[in-house]
């Protein structure tokens, strides 16, 4: 049972406090309710570019990193399609340095031309390093575009193309900040060995005078229901053919979310899962195969991906895969299978909860879903899932008309 307190400032900032008496460190985690899904389709990659600019100095402080490092701390941030998350980890006696820095950049950024210019270049190099200059690196750029036709999940957080990043202007930056980086659109979590009264006093001191603004409304186009199987083949300079089957699934708030997550575990979490055993070990069709869900807040996908063995065609693999998917729809999992999956979920959860940074980030994510207390119900929800629930989820999810298939064909691999 993970304990926490919650309070809200008058300007709308939600604050969570998690007490941990065993650590000499403190975590200050800030989640902003903005991600790549909030971008317009001609200015993609912006939420992530903006995350970089958050380190380029704020209204009263020329540089974010230096004072935090001087306080013995370190920090980082990530942007997803749904959220942007910033964290600082530092010795607890210097917590005010983190609150000073984080509150000042929530108040206002410095908006220097130099910072925008440099971070554009840095992000373009990140684009190349992670997406363009890696074998299979651009798969998710292609796959998202195949899965989504209307919803902004159709582009990756890095953006659709480099030109969108090149064309970002200071005006765009300022407008983005004004709209999303406001107290009512943020959740702050402090975790460490402190007392609630001190936390309240410090947060009020540093964040209390940030002006209040109404939380921005979100109007994201809903993805129309897929009615036909989709397929796309791309040819790349890679040594091996690869496959990505993506099945539409429910959103994060839906009661079936955890069931479909468990279904993906049954199919391809580890070397005992169905697809690994059947398609790799028994039939020797693939050299590796995994199944997982994207875990997004709006409707995401369950993905089955892997690489073909050298002498196997896409068609041979496809036939065998659908046969295996039919089995999990036709008969429930054995109780042994289900208990294996649940045991793994229990172990992961126990390990995840051990780091104070993880706990702070998860509390913020759950608060975004409506209640940080949901963090304590997650295990029970997983443990309650029955093999019939999974069978039902398999029947509704693993349909051909609900599937998008991306094939990556090796340029020199004649099939």
């Amino acid at each position, binding site marked *: 049972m993970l304990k926490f307190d919650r309070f809200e400032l008058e300007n709308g900032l939600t604050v969570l406090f998690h007490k941990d008496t065993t650590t*000499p460190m403190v975590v200050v985690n800030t989640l902003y309710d903005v991600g790549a899904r909030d971008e317009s389709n001609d200015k993609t990659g912006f939420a992530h570019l903006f995350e970089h600019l958050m380190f380029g100095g704020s209204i009263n402080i020329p540089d974010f990193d230096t004072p935090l490092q001087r306080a013995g701390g370190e920090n980082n941030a990530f942007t997803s399609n749904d959220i942007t998350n910033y964290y600082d980890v530092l010795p607890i006696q210097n917590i005010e340095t983190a609150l000073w820095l984080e509150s000042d950049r929530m108040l206002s950024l410095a908006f220097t031309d130099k910072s925008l210019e*440099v971070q554009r270049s840095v992000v373009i*190099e990140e684009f190349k*390093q992670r997406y363009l200059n890696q074998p299979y690196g651009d798969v998710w750029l292609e796959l998202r575009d195949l899965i989504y036709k209307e919803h902004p999940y159709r582009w990756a957080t890095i953006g659709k193309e480099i030109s969108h990043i090149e064309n970002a202007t200071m005006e765009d930056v300022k407008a983005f900040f004004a709209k999303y980086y406001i107290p009512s659109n943020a959740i702050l979590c402090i975790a460490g060995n402190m007392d609630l009264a001190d936390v309240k006093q410090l947060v009020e001191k*540093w964040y209390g005078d940030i002006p209040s603004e109404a939380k921005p409304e979100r109007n994201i186009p809903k993805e129309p229901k897929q009615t036909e199987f989709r397929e796309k083949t791309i040819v790349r300079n890679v*040594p091996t053919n690869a496959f990505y089957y993506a099945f539409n699934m429910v959103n994060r708030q839906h009661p079936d979310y955890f069931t479909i997550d468990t279904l993906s575990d049954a199919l391809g979490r580890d070397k005992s899962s169905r697809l690994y055993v059947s398609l790799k070990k028994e039939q*020797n069709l693939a*050299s590796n195969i995994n199944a997982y869900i994207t875990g997004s807040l709006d409707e995401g996908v369950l993905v089955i991906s892997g*690489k073909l063995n050298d002498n196997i065609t896409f068609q041979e693999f496809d036939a065998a895969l659908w046969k295996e998917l039919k089995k999990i729809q036709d008969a429930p999992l054995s109780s042994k299978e289900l208990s294996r999956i649940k045991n793994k979920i229990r*172990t992961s959860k126990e390990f995840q909860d051990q780091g104070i940074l993880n706990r702070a980030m998860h509390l913020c994510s759950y608060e975004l879903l409506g209640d940080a207390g949901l963090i304590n119900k997650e295990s029970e929800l997983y443990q309650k899932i029955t093999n019939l629930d999974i069978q039902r989820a398999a029947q509704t999810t693993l349909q051909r008309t609900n599937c998008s298939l991306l094939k990556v064909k090796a340029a020199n691999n004649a099939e």
Partner: protein
Amino acid sequence: MLNRSISPSLKAIENIDFVAPEKHVINSYVDLYHMKNVPNETARLDLYFDAGKCRGSHGIPAFVNGLLLSGTDEKSSMEIQEIINGLGGFFESGTSVENSVITVYCLRENLHQIFETLMDAIENLAFHDHEVKEFLSDRKQRHNINMEKVSFLAQREFQLKLFASDHDYASVTELEDFDTVKREELIEFHRKHYLNGLSKVVLVADVEKDVISNIISRCLPLALRSPLMHITDLKNTSGHFINEKSGAIQTAIRVGRILFNKKHEDYLDFLILQTILGDYFGSRLMSNIREDKGYTYGIGTALSEFKETGYFLVATEVRKDVRDATLKEIKKEFELLQNELCPSEEIELVKNYMLGQLLKSADGPYAMTDLFLSAQLQDKGLDFYNDAITSIHAITPERIRDLARQYLNWEEMTIVAAG
């Protein structure tokens, strides 16, 4: 009214509690280290073997490591996986230059059964033909994919030139190794380096003595029967080694040299020097090459350590057209440290940063165990970290400059670029 332009006052880190795991003797050369203070149900078990890449060639150490759960005469690989996964266990294994490490993560209630399964799998490994064939084919595919990555190509070339003085350390896996390796070679390596090569056991879990005694008695037959010995001297080949890769849009760069490890008297102060140069976000290389010029997403330095020696490296991936400009800037940063005294403000910052990071590295049973192991691997105890605190407090700008003059000479570096 709050004055936001003034930073809150800082409090220094006075002392850090370093907690050593309990040591249990397996035999005269091999110990088990047990960290008991775990406030939850988690458990981690590491088995170290003297089966690193330097103990073999043609990829054999990595192949045997990857085949450890591939089955016995009694159990297939799938049956072994089923037991470990069924108990909610996570298995990892890997080889570094000097070690092979097997790790399981699980809940402590399942530790005993997973451990027994693991030991049985290792002791009775059968190297079934079909498993070996499948494994090599998968690894060959992975090798081909890796050879498309500029970072992999640069690291591979770097290793060849860095360890050029020693054939065993410099060996890398070649494409033909996947086809030519013989089952007998794998069996022989396994016999020599696993069945008789256990060098250390580490357990992080709140478990009682009887669990420990069982692990000790089960491990004893595999334990090394002579002291673990490793090379003391390596010499890198200096110079520029540039590999063009058609189609690449970035170039991976590695610059480095053989240096030393924690046993050397200059180690701690050099660690401060290399932090200033490139081992934190505000470092000189990051400030210059990322934050000022935008050439890269990231650049960093590291001291990589072996049992008796070690090496220093700079690593980055940059825009293809700025390869030479980047090398010039790295060289310039080396020279700046040699020619100009480091401003005291910068030294203060790095001192505080390093102390904060050390505090974090000692936080919690898992981090603390890893911190302990990092010293233990080089026959050092936790006193080493108290010495580190002393060194950090005592460092001077002159000392940093002198170390830069002694160890950061461009002519002595191995400089590799791929892309």
